[in-house]
């Protein structure tokens, strides 16, 4: 069984590039060049230099002593929250901005939900002096004011998506429409392992630095390159793809993908795509997505804006279908409690997306000697308002 993309852009039955002809030249240009460019020595050098000096990598693999004691197992946190801009998203935007430059593009577009990917994109555009336009749902603009301000300070133009449900999926639609309207000079920096091939593979490769580091760090700290479990939250799936990447073919490593159950899987307000979704096409990719019986894409719900996506990347659809990864759905309440617990026990305030991954500790028994890695995908600064309201702080 292969968990990597095949020649045609599929993970098993998922993936591909279901795009209108208007996008074909752009996507094809990328498909023909992305691997070649990524393998260039000068690209690798610049990418790793920036990850080190600008992002602050490698991010620590931190042994969480008190959390481990509480759950009677060995828990390590991969500290993506310590990256510049506060989450794993920047690993991908650094990679893609270098890609865009080599493709000769001088205009960048992106979509964003919570604003994390928008900020990470605006940041690398400021760094490179490239024009940046970020599409963001009108509703999200209202609920994520600090990130909107950050993007503006960084020189990006934030354009409200006013169509459909006015959230992440509609922002993605608007970014794609912009790309159709600007096919020559523009590169679209997608924020997760979603979209038409080659995006899922390209983004996964940029994020794979996470598991590459985990292997090295674990070897130093535990004298093995293989943990027993790797846990990561899944919105579109990029932080999970990065944390799983080098373990995909090591079946002895248990992979746990954590989706947002919102108010509960059966509440009608949820984002647990693997359970609630059906095979279909969203944003150019054949994958699992939440939809009505007649194929209209529905609006998901989660307290965390970053997990609020009606689809999931094709790699994850494949991991689900083949049983390679275990999928667990965590409600808003479980996530919020887990976030508070991590804060109290370890002095780390996680992004609410990441809190979902920590809630698995209460749901699943781990052995005393198990090495459990939790990908701490982001920090909670952006979520303080939500924490304050939820806990009446």
């Amino acid at each position, binding site marked *: 069984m292969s968990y990597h993309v095949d020649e045609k852009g599929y993970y098993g039955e998922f993936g591909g590039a279901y*795009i209108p002809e208007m996008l074909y030249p752009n996507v094809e240009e990328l498909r023909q060049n992305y691997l070649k460019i990524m393998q260039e020595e000068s690209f690798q050098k610049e990418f790793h230099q920036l990850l080190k000096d600008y992002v602050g990598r490698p991010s620590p693999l931190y042994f969480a002593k008190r959390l481990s004691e509480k759950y009677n197992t060995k828990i390590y946190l991969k500290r993506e929250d310590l990256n510049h801009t506060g989450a794993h998203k920047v690993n991908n935007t650094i990679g893609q901005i270098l890609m865009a430059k080599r493709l000769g593009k001088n205009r960048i577009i992106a979509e964003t939900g919570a604003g994390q990917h928008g900020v990470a994109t605006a940041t690398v555009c400021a760094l490179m002096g490239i024009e940046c336009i970020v599409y963001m749902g009108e509703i999200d603009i209202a609920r994520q004011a600090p990130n909107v301000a950050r993007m503006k300070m960084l020189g990006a133009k934030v354009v409200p998506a006013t169509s459909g449900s006015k959230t992440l999926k509609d922002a993605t639609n608007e970014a794609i429409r912009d790309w159709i309207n600007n096919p020559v000079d523009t590169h679209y920096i997608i924020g997760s392992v979603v979209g038409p091939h080659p995006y899922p593979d390209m983004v996964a490769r940029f994020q794979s630095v996470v598991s590459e580091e985990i292997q090295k760090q674990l070897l130093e700290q535990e004298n093995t390159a293989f943990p027993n479990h790797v846990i990561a939250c899944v919105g579109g799936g990029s932080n999970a793809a990065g944390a799983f990447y080098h373990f995909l073919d090591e079946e002895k490593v248990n992979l746990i993908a954590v989706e947002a159950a919102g108010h509960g899987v059966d509440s009608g307000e949820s984002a647990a795509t693997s359970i609630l979704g059906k095979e279909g096409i969203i944003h150019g990719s054949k994958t699992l997505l939440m939809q009505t019986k007649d*194929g209209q894409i529905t609006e998901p719900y989660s307290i965390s804006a970053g997990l609020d996506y009606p689809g999931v990347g094709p790699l994850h659809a494949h991991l689900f279908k083949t049983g390679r990864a275990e999928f667990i759905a965590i409600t808003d309440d479980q996530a919020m409690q887990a976030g508070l617990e991590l804060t109290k026990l370890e002095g780390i305030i996680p992004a609410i997306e990441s809190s979902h991954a920590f809630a698995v500790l209460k749901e699943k028994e781990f052995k005393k000697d198990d090495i459990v890695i939790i990908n701490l995908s982001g920090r909670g600064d952006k979520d303080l308002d939500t924490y304050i309201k939820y806990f009446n702080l």
Partner: protein
Amino acid sequence: MNRIQQKLQENKKLVSIYFTAGYPTLTDTKSIIENLEKAGTDIIEIGLPFSDPLADGPTIQESSTKALKNGMNSEVLFEQLKDIRSTVNIPLIIMGYFNPMLQYGVEEFCKKCNEIGIDGLIIPDLPVDVYDEAYKSLFEKYNLTNIFLITPQTSDERIRYIDSISNGFIYMVSSASVTGAKNTFGEQQKAYFERINNLNLKTPQIVGFGISNKETFEQATTYAKGGIIGSAFVKHITNHPIGKIKDFFIFA
């Protein structure tokens, strides 16, 4: 020869009209089609609304959102069209995104189209190669013509490939843009129209996206066999009763 192929043999520039099924109200579909035929439309594209129409501009997006709210979907559309061939003779094409068809079942969808007398499909997000590999025989089995798009960025090589697997017309997207009405075409478009004309394709081309008036229609059909009007017509039925569809044709 099916109705589309027959129509393409006529010695005239063809006027093709797009509208969104279920808009402005759910039950307007049939009378819009009948009135369009009476007004002299050559080919009709019936838009099956989708929640996330990637290739469409604001006018068609809004009509789609409204149509879905009104309750339109594949099943309702097929029910509304089941007797359409007792009153309408011109070619009818369904234009829609792939996911609703996938959920209906692609074979079932094609079968239903054939039963009703639909002549072809336009599915912007079904890539040519996937069609060629997975669905071509199905379309042939149910006598449906699949219409492919080309754009100013499509390479000559790819246009020739598309030409080779087309058996109706090629939908020539006028410019690098989503759907939406324009007032005029510029030099770039004219050069593109000429380039395509010089390829001497076997498949006739009909130009769409951006045609809104007599001027744009005439520019678009200098070489091409016809023009498709979408957003401008959707705007018209937003603002005028269906009985006034004839007024829309003063330009054509």
